[in-house]
């Protein structure tokens, strides 16, 4: 007999070729998608990492009693609101004595952040013993100086199109030469709300707004979604009505999120008169949006639980409800939680419905509850991306990094829950 079984016939060669060709298609597809991801992350990191540091300028400030507290009353409010501007300016002029005219003085003062006076006020109010002493304090530089120090302003650019003029740059370099410029961790970014000035803007109010919205969303969507799924899957008879409900739930999952925003505007704000721009309403709208996702995920989990488990319990004389709540729901819980968390992760990144219910405002105050006016992380990113100041470019990318971090954390939590709660059968 010939040994053709062991050699490669032309047909076999064709099959092998097709096999390897297909493998290569797959590899190329994966390579392309990974390179896009790498590109995206590098772009975001390259732009955003700078925002976690900020430039400080060391100024020797003489905390003169006559300026801060001429009456010597030490009243907190007065200490906070005293006129610190001349004190800072005097300190700066010690390093840059040539800035004497009014115009030059104004330009010099613009090197430091507009928020520096409040910062000093807070420090003095916290420690009134400072009054009467002269101390080197590190105050935030303005956004332009910050960008220059980080090398993000091109000095060779025509002076007319730069906000930081040659004179300013010379002063900054003079300060730098004296060791009065340093970069430090940008705490403000994590501890304050939005601001018109990039160096004073922070992510906290948006993050808390997102947190409160998601909290409301979870409290509404999780129980409603689970109960709906359990009822439809375990109790309801399969008939035209349940079919209709099922089709409509699937349709709802595909409705563009902005439509839910309009619904929230019409129903929650205009009809029920709930407070505008609050995480309460935001969370309710997100809950509407997340519900179909949770229901669909939970139902498929329930359906995947083997019939034998139901049979075992029913055969012992457990009632429908005992079977469901002693056996089926505990088995399905990890999957249902995972579905919920993934739905919530989607809700966290949602912008459109929140625009409709007014969570798109300039919010400086940090929200303390679900009925305080707030914005959310993706909306904050949108707002910053839309701002003309160059300093916000960095902040936008930094905010995206924070949002991505939250998303990754939520997904990891879903994986952890699944591993932790999963029981084999």
């Amino acid at each position, binding site marked *: 007999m010939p040994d053709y079984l062991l050699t490669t016939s032309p047909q076999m060669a064709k099959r092998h070729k097709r096999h390897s060709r297909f493998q290569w298609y797959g590899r190329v597809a994966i390579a392309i998608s990974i390179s896009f991801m790498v590109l995206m992350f590098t772009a975001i990191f390259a732009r955003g990492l700078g925002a976690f540091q900020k430039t400080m300028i060391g100024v020797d400030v003489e905390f003169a009693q006559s300026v801060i507290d001429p009456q010597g009353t030490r009243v907190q409010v007065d200490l906070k609101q005293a006129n610190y501007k001349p004190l800072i300016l005097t300190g700066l002029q010690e390093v840059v004595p040539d800035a004497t005219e009014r115009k030059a003085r104004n330009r010099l003062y613009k090197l430091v952040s507009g928020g520096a006076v409040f910062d000093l006020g807070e420090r003095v109010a916290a420690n009134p013993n400072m009054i009467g002493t002269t101390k080197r304090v590190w105050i935030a530089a303005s956004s332009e100086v910050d960008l220059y120090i980080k090398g993000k302003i091109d000095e060779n650019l025509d002076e007319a199109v730069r906000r930081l003029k040659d004179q300013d740059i010379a002063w900054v370099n003079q300060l730098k030469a004296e060791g009065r410029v340093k970069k430090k961790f940008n705490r403000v970014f994590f501890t304050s709300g939005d601001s018109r000035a990039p160096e004073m803007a922070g992510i906290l109010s948006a993050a808390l707004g997102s947190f409160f919205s998601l909290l409301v969303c979870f409290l509404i969507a999780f129980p409603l979604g689970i109960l709906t799924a359990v009822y439809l899957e375990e109790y309801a008879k399969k008939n035209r009505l349940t079919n209709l409900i099922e089709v409509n739930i699937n349709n709802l999952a595909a409705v563009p999120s902005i439509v839910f925003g309009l619904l929230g505007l019409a129903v929650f704000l205009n009809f029920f008169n709930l407070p505008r721009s609050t995480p309460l309403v935001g969370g309710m709208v997100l809950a509407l949006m997340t519900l179909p996702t949770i229901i669909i995920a939970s139902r498929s989990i329930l359906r995947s639980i083997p019939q034998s488990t*139901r049979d075992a319990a029913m055969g*012992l004389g457990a009632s429908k409800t005992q079977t469901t709540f002693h056996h089926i729901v505990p088995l399905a819980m990890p999957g249902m939680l995972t579905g919920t968390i993934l739905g919530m992760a989607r809700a966290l990144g949602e912008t459109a419905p929140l625009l409709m219910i007014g969570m798109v405002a300039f919010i400086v105050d940090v929200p303390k509850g679900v009925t305080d006016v707030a914005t959310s992380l993706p909306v904050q990113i949108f707002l910053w991306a839309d701002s003309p100041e160059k300093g916000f470019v960095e902040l936008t990318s930094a905010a995206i990094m924070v949002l991505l971090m939250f998303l990754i954390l939520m997904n990891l939590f879903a994986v952890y829950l699944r591993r932790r709660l999963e029981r084999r059968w």
Partner: protein
Amino acid sequence: MEKNMTYKTAVSTNGSAPIMTANGVDVYYGKKQAIKNVSLDIPENQITALIGPSGCGKSTFLRCFNRMNDTIDSCRISGDIKFAGQDIYDSKVDVVALRSRIGMVFQKANPFPKSIFDNVAYGPRIHGLSESKDHLEDIVITSLRRAGLYDEVSDRLNEPGTSLSGGQQQRLCIARAIAVDPQIILMDEPCSALDPIATAIIENLMDSMKEKYTIVIVTHSMQQAARVSQQTAFFHLGELVESGDTESIFTNPAQERTQNYISGRIG
């Protein structure tokens, strides 16, 4: 149990009183008729085997006895099935109570994903059969003993039931069914997924169980039916072709179809 004795009303052909009687039972799945006018008596404290080729309706018929078919939406049943003289499809009958009197063991061992102890204790717990923790432990241990499993698992009652071998899992399911103290145990091909050794253990177990329980078993294996049962019923295409004494069915069947099946010509 003494109270079982009071149910002896009718006397069946082979001397034992029927604890369960089916009369003119039809079962439909949607439009398809799965069981056609079947009448059968189940004698007490005996093993009745339902045999027949795949799809002949024997499992469907078995599931009528504890109304497990109720869980299938499209399933309709007519005719009457009496347990201890009571129509089990009567609207006044509580299915939960019925199933606590008639236990069931399934084809695929299906222990709950819980500990061995909790598997057996689940039935007594939901029916409130135990007065105290000690009593519950007692029920669990007795049930495991009766199912011939206790010696193998006595030192690991807190391990998951799913960690046992296939044969042990099936005996765990039998122990779980026994724990609610039923009168009848329905077994739907309990050995079809087991090796011969595990099968032999379960067959011996059934033999010893019949003193206390009435057993109805669906089986694919004619040898098994011949080995364990006292009464055999042969189903074909939804009909009950023939029923009677196991010995006479296997040695001297009255119907040609039965003859053909047991000699391997149909099925």
